[in-house]
């Protein structure tokens, strides 16, 4: 039994920290002291619980009570009521929207019910800044097992049999990659952890590094043993200060404990690693560009083959793996290939972490078994669409992925099915859209991102994407032609076929997939000069509905170009020739008398 009777776990992920979880922690500690409970109750800062929508989260054990949206001022009540008197603070419990009932335990929450946590197993459960906590939950046991009981070949065989595939986007089988690095003879070999995470809106890898950095260090050492590498690098973007800080602590502690460095656990195996910082260019997440960046060259991709496993960092065999891929390794070693491969679909095993964002009720980080449907993620876990609006589309795979529709909602998702319906797994971004989102504009948004992020090395991507973006801009301004739509398609396909690296090869996906599923909307923009979502401002007009207008003059007063005329208490009118479509009148009208069309 623990020295402490109660443990309070407080989320210390980037999101909750921004909502002052530090203040909660210091207030909790203060009040705990005031009530003389400091020898009974322990406050632990953990990684992300995933339920970011309702953060900051405080979890109380052993009662297993889950408090949401906690503010520093609430600390006193939690201490006085729950810790001292044993009474749960009801007002801080989560109201399950489907039941309209407050639920105290996270296992009763729909958000958690369909999740299986493997990569995120320790996030929100242990303190990421204390190696002792990681050790207490079987930490470094997998490394110990591998070093004492298994040959490198057996490790590779086990990972191959588990069916684990890369979580960085490509979905390449991890065991086969390790095998290739093992088989390339060389004195020096390297392991690289790809923590570049450049997709807009994605934060899976960051959360793992913030919540459970040791699992990645342990897995990198295991990969080193399997491939024959003695040195590793974690390539992380400098914009992740908290993840970097926790990694640094973790590395220092692991070295102190002899779990990194020379002669690990007395087995004669040496492995150490270091952090390398990226400046946050999307293309630097591509493995060859990443390697050049570590070498000190420009972060530009080069042709494959040779693959990094043959000739990577400083021309030595190198295995590049993603953060989430690594986080899966220790449980696979300890629980076995069969355990892991029992989860998921035929070709995609295990789980995938998604960063659920956009117009869903429960924005957050979710880990689900492969083969789950989009409907389950969006409607069961995500709690459905915000404000009871209608679902329109879901974007997966970030700037390389595509937009899917209602009819795809029941497809069991894995690497293959997503690719077959024109999107991809990608690294796990998932953005939900409702009827207020214009699909042409969404495609334009992603293209803007790729145009910015293209490294410029090859023409199809550098020039082609720029042309795609120009055409999309024309369409959203009502200047597009049917010919433009043809060019869009043709050019998109050509870029996919001819670009040098994965960035260019996938960048037309958002355009092509929206054209496939929302063709009507494109045609409307071109032929009818209309945007049904009311997003493309150039295609909009504001009208006053005479029957609803009471003549309050509010709109006329806010109109910056004074194009609204009318007498007091009589219906007003907008002079369309002068209107600049700023929308000020629309927001000003209290009587819903102004309409966008």
């Amino acid at each position, binding site marked *: 039994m623990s020295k*402490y009777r109660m443990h309070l776990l407080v989320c210390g992920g980037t999101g909750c920290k921004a909502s002052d979880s530090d203040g909660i922690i210091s207030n909790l500690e203060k009040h705990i002291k005031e009530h003389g409970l400091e020898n009974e109750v322990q406050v632990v800062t953990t990684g992300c619980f995933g339920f970011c929508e309702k953060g900051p989260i405080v979890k109380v*054990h052993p009662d297993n009570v889950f408090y949401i949206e906690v503010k520093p001022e609430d600390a006193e009540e939690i201490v006085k009521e729950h810790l001292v008197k044993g009474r749960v603070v009801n007002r801080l419990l989560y109201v399950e929207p489907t039941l309209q009932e407050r639920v105290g335990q996270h296992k009763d929450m729909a958000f958690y019910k369909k999740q299986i946590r493997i990569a995120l197993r320790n996030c929100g459960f242990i303190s990421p800044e204390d190696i002792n906590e990681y050790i207490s939950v079987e930490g470094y046991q997998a490394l110990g097992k591998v070093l004492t009981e298994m040959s490198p070949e057996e490790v590779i065989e086990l990972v191959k049999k588990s069916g684990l595939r890369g979580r960085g986007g490509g979905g390449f089988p991890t065991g086969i990659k390790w095998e290739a690095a093992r088989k390339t003879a060389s004195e020096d070999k390297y392991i690289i952890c790809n923590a570049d995470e450049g997709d807009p809106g994605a934060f899976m890898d960051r959360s793992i590094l913030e919540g459970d950095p040791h699992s990645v260090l342990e897995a990198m050492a295991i990969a080193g043993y399997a491939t024959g590498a003695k040195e590793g690098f974690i390539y992380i973007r400098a914009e992740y200060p908290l993840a970097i800080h926790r990694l640094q602590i973790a590395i220092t502690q692991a070295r102190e404990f002899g779990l990194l460095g020379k002669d690990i656990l007395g087995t004669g195996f040496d492995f150490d690693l270091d952090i390398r910082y990226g400046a946050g260019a999307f293309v630097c997440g591509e493995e060859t560009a990443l390697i050049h960046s570590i070498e000190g060259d420009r972060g530009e991709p080069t042709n494959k083959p040779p693959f990094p496993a043959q000739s990577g960092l400083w021309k030595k065999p190198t295995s590049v793996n993603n953060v989430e891929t690594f986080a899966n390794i220790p449980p696979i070693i300890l629980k076995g290939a069969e355990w892991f491969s029992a989860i998921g679909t035929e070709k995609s095993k295990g789980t995938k972490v998604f960063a659920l964002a956009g117009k869903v009720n429960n924005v957050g980080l979710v880990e689900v078994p492969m083969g789950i449907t989009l409907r389950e993620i969006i409607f069961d876990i995500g709690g459905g669409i915000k404000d009871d609006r209608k679902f329109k589309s879901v974007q997966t795979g970030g700037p390389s992925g595509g937009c899917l529709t209602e009819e795809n909602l029941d497809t069991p998702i894995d690497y293959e099915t997503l690719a077959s319906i024109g999107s991809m797994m990608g690294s796990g971004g998932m953005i939900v859209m409702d009827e207020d989102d214009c699909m042409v504009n969404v495609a334009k948004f992603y293209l803007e991102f790729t145009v910015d992020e293209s490294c410029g090395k090859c023409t199809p991507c550098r020039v082609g994407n720029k042309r795609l973006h120009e055409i999309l801009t024309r369409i959203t301004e009502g200047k597009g032609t049917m010919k433009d739509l043809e060019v869009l398609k043709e050019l998109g396909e050509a870029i996919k076929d001819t670009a040098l690296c994965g960035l260019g090869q996938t960048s037309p996906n958002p355009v092509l997939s929206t054209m496939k599923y929302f063709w009507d909307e494109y045609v409307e923009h071109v032929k009818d000069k209309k945007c049904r979502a009311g997003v493309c401002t150039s295609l909009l007009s504001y009208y006053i509905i005479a029957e609803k207008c009471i003549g309050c003059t509010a709109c006329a007063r806010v109109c910056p170009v004074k194009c609204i005329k009318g007498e007091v208490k009589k219906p007003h009118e907008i002079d369309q020739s002068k209107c600049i479509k700023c929308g000020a009148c629309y927001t000003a009208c209290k009587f819903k008398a102004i309409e966008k069309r």
Partner: protein
Amino acid sequence: MCPIKSLDELKALRDKLKTDIDVREAGEAEGNIKVIVGMATCGIAAGARETMLAMLEEINKLGIKNVTIVQSGCMGSCYAEPTVELRFPGQEPILYGNVNSEKGREIVTKHIKDGELVQNLIIGRPFETV
């Protein structure tokens, strides 16, 4: 901290540390013995906190696992505070009354460890909860 020299050392360290966080797993586990200490104003005034700490210490001393200590509000037996309720999985709960620190330790050694009821302290089987 000096380096860990072998897998056995690592396992020993894990076993030692495991107890530090088992409270968190106990929360998730269903099969634990639950010790519920009445900690409303009446209980606290009668010394429930001291009782609980003593029981906690005794449980740790004996190295007993799978016990969850939780506190509750007033259990309605204010005349017999401090009160301690014991719930073994799948059994009727037992309610002890007037449990001071010393008696708390006795409950740990007799009832929790050896499974014998401490007859003279039982004040009832708590009401059915629905």
